[in-house]
């Protein structure tokens, strides 16, 4: 090869790719509409604090105290009590998904209470939905204390006081947790999926061979094909960022340049990974499955987006390190909410840089080897 890298040719390929994108309604929708849709829907929909828990009540006591106990549940604004009749019925209600929990008050409740014995009630919680059980248990504990105080006037003085400060998210707003994570998911999907498909398509159509017989250099092809998707990714992230700040009032206390640097590193890594997938598979159907498997699912399930990495078994805590999404998730959340600086985030940045260099090397090597026999 005598001719060297020429920008004009890379730009020409990029232009052609832009036409491709503009022509295809699905690509455009995926790239521009979906990020907005996702942030809005997620922002409105997601609330980890379980509310409106339907509580099937069986009150066999029918006394003033038992009614006040039910009221205490109802006024907590977490539970919606409804009368279910016999204790067996409450169980049937849980089975039929009409209730998440049930409260069973035995006939001697008030008598026990007045006699100074401890009055016991039973609470059944639907364990089929783990995510709700933790919250329900917490609420029930708080309600017990309140009920003891209101109904029986039981309020022992505590010898100490625990003052909790919830840092970085004092109102415990789930959105502040979810939306910064969304930037990662959005970018992951866009970059890996689109590149994997677009390059695989050229192989499948045979136009890659055609391209190669022209004086265009492999590096020019790569840069030309990937730049438009990189730009799309950046636009999508900007959308998400603006909606997060303006629409949902998520704070951004960190340094925007740190966040931006993380974005770029992550984007390039995933573009390279998409390229690697498409060069290896060369078929859109297989490339799609691989992109789903190595890009989409890990970025949602193994990155700490919803399920914390710290809760994984030891093997997986190390295993997740190979996913760029896990590192960028840390950078995104910490710069948004905690205002961490580069030195606090040295580990994620180092890891991301390493993965980025590794992916680019692998992708270009594979690409070149396949092209230059």
């Amino acid at each position, binding site marked *: 090869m005598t001719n060297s890298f020429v920008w004009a040719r890379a730009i020409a390929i990029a232009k052609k790719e832009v036409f491709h994108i503009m022509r*295809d309604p699905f690509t455009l929708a995926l790239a521009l509409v979906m990020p907005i849709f996702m942030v809005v829907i997620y922002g409105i929909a997601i609330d980890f604090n379980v509310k409106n828990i339907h509580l099937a009540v069986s009150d066999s006591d029918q006394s003033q105290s038992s009614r006040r106990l039910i009221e205490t549940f109802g006024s907590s604004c977490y539970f919606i009590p409804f009368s279910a009749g016999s204790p067996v019925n409450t169980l049937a209600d849980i089975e039929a998904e009409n209730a998440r929990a049930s409260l069973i008050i035995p006939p001697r409740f008030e008598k026990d209470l007045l006699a100074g014995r401890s009055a016991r009630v*039973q609470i059944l919680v639907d364990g089929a939905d783990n995510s709700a059980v933790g919250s329900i248990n917490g609420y029930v504990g708080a309600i017990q204390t309140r009920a*003891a105080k209101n109904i029986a006037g039981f309020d022992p003085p505590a010898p100490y006081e625990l003052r909790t400060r919830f840092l970085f998210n004092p109102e415990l707003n789930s959105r502040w947790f979810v939306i910064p994570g969304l930037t990662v998911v959005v970018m992951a999907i866009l970059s890996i999926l689109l590149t994997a498909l677009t390059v695989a398509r050229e192989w499948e159509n045979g136009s890659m061979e055609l391209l190669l017989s022209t004086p265009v250099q492999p590096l020019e092809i790569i840069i030309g094909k990937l730049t438009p998707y990189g730009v799309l990714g950046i636009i999508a992230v900007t959308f998400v960022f603006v909606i997060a700040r303006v629409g949902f009032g998520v704070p951004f206390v960190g340094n925007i340049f740190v966040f931006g640097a993380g974005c770029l590193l992550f984007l390039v890594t995933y573009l390279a990974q998409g390229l690697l997938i498409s060069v290896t598979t060369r078929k859109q159907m297989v490339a799609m499955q691989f992109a789903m498997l190595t890009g989409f699912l890990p970025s949602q399930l193994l990155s700490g987006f919803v399920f914390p990495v710290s809760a994984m078994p030891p093997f997986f805590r190390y295993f997740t390190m190979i996913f760029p999404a896990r590192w960028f998730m840390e950078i995104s959340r910490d710069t948004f909410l905690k205002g961490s600086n580069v030195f606090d985030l040295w580990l994620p940045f180092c890891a991301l840089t390493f993965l980025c260099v590794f992916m680019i090397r692998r992708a270009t090597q594979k690409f070149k080897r396949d092209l230059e026999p």
Partner: protein
Amino acid sequence: MNKTLIGFVRKELTQTLRDPRMKFMLFMMPMVQMTLFGVAISNEVKNMRLAAVFDSKDYVMRDVYERSLAGGWFVPAKSSGESDPFRLIQSGNADAVLIAPQGGFTRGLGRGDAPLQLLVNATNVTQAQAVENYLRQIVQTTVMNDLNIKAPESPIQFDTRILYNPSLETAVFMVPGVMCTLMVMTTMMLAMVAIVREKEMGTFETLISAPVSATEVIYGKTIPYVILGMVNLPLVLSVAVFIFKVPMRGSLLVLCLAAFAFVCTSVATGTLISTYCKNQQQANLASFLFMFPAMMFSGLMFPIENMPWSIRWMAYFDPLAHYMGLLRNIMLKGGGFQYVALHIGVLALMAVVLTRLSFRRFHTTLQ
């Protein structure tokens, strides 16, 4: 079933299973993924990094700290030269910091005013709340224990029992969810790509000119994927039951029926989407546009009950949500007749409507 149709189905199956990579993707991958995700992901709180700021003579405080670490929820925070507790959390070296009051917690207890401070990193809301609750309990029991006070018993006692999954095994809850996601991915996408590929290669026109009716073409293109989806069911189900010990309390037959209704819906969705796509890339992206909201409204990651009604209604149109509910209900609770019948009915209705719609689309485009 007539002969043409059987031949068609057989051709389609051979074509799909010809590629060894496809066979691997179809039969091995769901099992591998289920094992991976079933083991890996959970909502539990574990390995939170806890730091405590206290004097060496403050023995109650030391007890609190040691007890917290012994419980398995916490690990000691990374020691860095940092002395400011806020910076300790901000730099990511700790998730929670306990700070003893001036003069020590032990002495504060003696005086009767001992504000113990707890700083929690609340970026993850649920975790932060769980950590606070847990530490509150630990401080309570430690103080009672160390000061030899018997806590006065509350006159109202709640006996809480957790049904179906008393030890709160995450896998029992997660695995049916993951199973559902994997089944939709294989069946819907395969059916869709199979149809679009024919369109792209122009072989669809050839098929039409052959002496087969449009109905036979459509059934021939979809039935194989329903079969493949159903073949997948025992595989993923055995991973769930034998590896993850997810209980199977309901009837296997009912579960198969639910799975069948779901696979039909999923294949029909794929078929309908495929009528709008010109090439494989569009099909892949479109399947993505469907999968994303479908996963979100399925209840796998976020509880549907928490969503406001303005968007919650969408969950009722999500086949994944119905199937996920069915799987959990049948496997964990044994499947109440009313619930199961209702949701299988909804799935079946969806399948019928979607099939009719895609038939109509096909007829208009083909003839």
